[in-house]
Each structure stands twice: as C-alpha cells, then as structure tokens.
C-alpha cells in the first residue's frame, strides 16, 4: 500500500478505482473517466490533489533566493498573487514546473509535482544554502481542486459569506487566505476554478460539503485528459531535464527581463536563443479516427521527425489529440505512426479547448 491522502477512506467508499501515482494510492476515476471529464467542462468537479508537494519559503532572503531559483520572476508578484514557472538546472533543462504564491514580502509558497518530490526538495535545499531562508514542507495540508464553469455559483455554499464574496471576486492567479486555509483561482483543466489548501483534518468534512453541492468527484484520469485539452504540459511526459522551456511551449514563462537578474539556467537559455531553438512542442489533432498515444513517431513531409509526448482521446472534441515534440517551424500537416500505419494529423498551437470550446 502506498501513501494515502486524508480522503482515502472517502475515495474507497465512493468506489474509486485506485492506482499508484508516484507512490500514492490515488483515484483514477469513480466509475467513468469520460463522464467526469465532460462534467467538469459543463458543470463542476472536485479533485483530490493532496499528493502534490507544498514548500513554504520564509526568511529575509526569500525573494532574492526565488529570483535566482526560478526562470520566471517573482518580482512580478504582489501579496496574494501566483505565477507559473519552471525551475531549471544549469543547462536550462526543466527540473520541474511549479506555481509560486507570494503570501507576504518574506513568505512565498511553492507547489511542485509529487513525482519529482525527492529531487525537487534536494535541489531547492542545495541551492538555498547561501541564502537566509527557511524551507518547510507542508505535509500538514491537503489540496482540493474544484474546477468547472459551475463552480462560482457554489461558493456561497462552501465558504462563510464574507469570504465567499471575496473569493468570487478573485481574478485568475489571485488567492485569498482564511487562517490556515488558502484559496487560489488556479487549476489544471482550462476551466474556471479554485485550488484550496487546507489542514488535513479539515479535508474529509470539506470534501463531503463539496459533494453535497452537486460537484462531482473526479479522478486523475479526467485530470489528465482535461489538462491535455487545455494544452497544459505534464512534467515527465511533455518536458524533463533534457529540454528547455523554449522547446516546451513555455517561452512565455521565462523572464529574460530585467537583464541583470541572474537565475539558474539563464546562460544556457541565452546561448540556445543565439544558436537557435531546434525543436518545439506543438499540438496534434488526428484527422481521421483513432487515439494518439505517448511515444508514437511523428513524420513531417519527409523533412523531419518527432514524437508524441502526451497523446489521448479528447472527450470534448471526440478526436485523437496530442502534444508532440517536432522540429522547429514545422506547421500544417504531419503523419503519426499508429501501430505501423501512418495517419494524417494537423499541427496546431495548443490549447485544444478553452472554457469548453474548441480553440484551434
């Protein structure tokens, strides 16, 4: 048996199909991944993502340390705001992608992937050595993501009146604090929604409260197809330490200005820009029927080859879709090797779906 979240018993009672995810027993689905996916696009779903790692960074050097550690610039943040960023190695390769929240001038919160927990903690600890900062992993907090166009109507049933009003007013990537609770307008589905960090002991009761409002419990299966439709990368599939943000459709997350900000990986990225970025991460939409799968080979007019990094079936579009790494500047049509047969696919710029609608 793996590690479990405080909602494990709730998942078992709800007859979730549990799978191992990075050493955690997590719900894959509660009956039908497709139904859960479509319900989030049309209404509202809740995901237990308590397996993700929260690290609080405090101390007088916190901002300076994060300016050095992260490829995006935390100086863009005011208190209560969040930023998506990569954490790079010295070669510009992606160690992980994460969200950083500014809680106060000398207090930031990082939420990193669970599959990369050990190496992330080791890297952050090592790089923090020369800074007056304190790192604290928040294993005492659970994370629930409530996502979907119907969420905003449920807030008054979930939170005290005054807080609910403030949460309803939050702009994307803004957050609201209620003592040990932390509610941010963020997510991984391409829909409106919130990610809620709360004490472990509060999680089961709040989970039940969420379900009582008609929000559907959703597993990691639907989370994966939702994020793929939304064109959001998955660490370990669409990016890793061998590729840079420029090769991963994440150029927008790298803050090269101001020029004097020295961050880990900067030199390597500047060198790559000078020499030219040779590959890119694009979206693929299968022209015919079928399903795209990770690692399938992509061929473009005989002039180059690439591969699918995340492939699946889009429940919203009813088509095979994928993210794929292909030579730079390729566009138009390509062919994907599906079990020995080459099938035509269109190269598009992700996302595929945004707020329930086709976007390409």
């Amino acid at each position, binding site marked *: 048996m793996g590690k479990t979240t405080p909602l494990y018993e709730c998942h078992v009672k709800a007859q979730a199909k549990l799978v191992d995810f990075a050493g955690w027993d997590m719900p894959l689905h509660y009956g039908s*991944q*497709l139904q859960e996916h479509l319900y989030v696009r049309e209404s509202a779903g809740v995901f237990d993502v308590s397996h993700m790692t929260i690290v609080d960074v405090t101390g007088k050097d916190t901002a300076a340390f994060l300016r050095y550690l992260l490829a995006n610039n935390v100086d863009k943040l005011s208190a209560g705001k969040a930023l998506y960023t990569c954490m790079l190695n010295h070669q510009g390769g992606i160690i992980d992608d994460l969200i950083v929240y500014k809680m106060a001038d000398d207090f930031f919160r990082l939420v990193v992937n669970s599959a990369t927990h050990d190496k992330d903690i080791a890297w952050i600890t090592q790089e923090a050595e020369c800074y007056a900062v304190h790192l604290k992993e928040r294993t005492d907090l659970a994370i629930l993501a409530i996502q979907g166009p119907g969420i905003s109507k449920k807030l008054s049933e979930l939170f005290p009146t005054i807080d609910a009003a403030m949460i309803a007013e939050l702009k994307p990537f803004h957050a609201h604090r209620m003592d040990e609770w932390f509610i941010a307008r963020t997510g991984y589905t391409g829909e409106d929604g919130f990610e809620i960090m709360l004490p472990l002991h509060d999680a089961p009761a709040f989970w039940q409260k969420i379900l009582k409002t008609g929000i559907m419990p959703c597993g990691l299966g639907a989370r994966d197809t939702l994020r793929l439709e939304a064109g959001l990368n998955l660490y370990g599939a669409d990016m890793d330490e061998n590729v840079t943000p420029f090769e991963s459709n994440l150029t927008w997350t790298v803050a090269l200005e101001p020029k004097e900000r020295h961050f880990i990986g900067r030199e390597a990225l500047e060198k790559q820009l000078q020499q030219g970025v040779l590959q890119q991460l694009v979206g693929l939409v299968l022209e015919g*029927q079928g*399903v795209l799968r990770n690692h399938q080979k992509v061929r473009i007019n005989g002039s180059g080859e690439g591969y699918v990094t995340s492939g699946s079936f889009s429940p919203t579009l009813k088509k*095979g879709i994928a993210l794929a790494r292909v030579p730079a500047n390729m566009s138009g049509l390509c062919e994907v090797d599906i079990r020995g047969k080459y099938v035509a696919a269109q190269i598009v710029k992700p996302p595929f779906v945004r707020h329930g609608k086709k976007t390409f």
Partner: protein
Amino acid sequence: MSNVPKTLKYSKTHEWVRKDDDVFTVGITDHAQCMLGDLVYVELPEPEITLEFGQECAVVESVKAAADIYCPLSGEVVEINEALLEHPQLINQDPYGKGWLFRVRPFDNASNELLTPAEYSKQVASEAH
C-alpha cells in the same frame, strides 16, 4: 467481482464466445472492459475476412490504453457490430449484449482452446493478485 455468464465460453485473452446456431458471436468480457475503462475507439475486422485462432483481428481503445483482440476461433467473419464505430461505450455498458464485436462462422466446431466460465473466473481471480 466482474460478471462471468455461465452460458458463454472464454479465451485466456479476455474474449467471450457465444454459439448462436452455426455462427459464433465474439466480444470482450466485463472484466476486460472494466480494466480498460471508458472505450473511445474500436477497429473491427473486415466482413468476409478469414481469421485464424489467436490472430489479432480488432483493436479496442480506451482513454487509457489500446488493446488487441485475438480471434478466439478460426472461421469467416460474417457480421461486425457497426454500432460500436459510433458508440464504443456500448462495450462498457453491455459487454455481453449490445457491446458484441463480430460474428464468425467457424471452419469446424472445435473450440477446445476455450475456457469454461469457472476456468475463466479462476484466471481473473489469479490476475488480481
């Protein structure tokens, strides 16, 4: 525990076979559909094609994975379930009924390689651990 009807025969690779007069209907078991999850795409054999026992003859794909279907007997394909092309989830909803895959007229009636319901149930139970 998944549903294993007593009136059918089974293959080790999770297909079921039902004899209807001189034709055999083939599908995938409740256990197989449950392991695969929501099905989203099905590739069926061409009608009138000849299949050998154990030959890869169809593909069923869920959101999660693709699975090959191995023909559980030798014979000629006489009918395919075209409804699945539009509605692959019929396999999830009714694996032994509306979710059938294709029908085969066998070259002979020998389907010795197939498992009884008890044997198949035992195999499923042993795979679970």
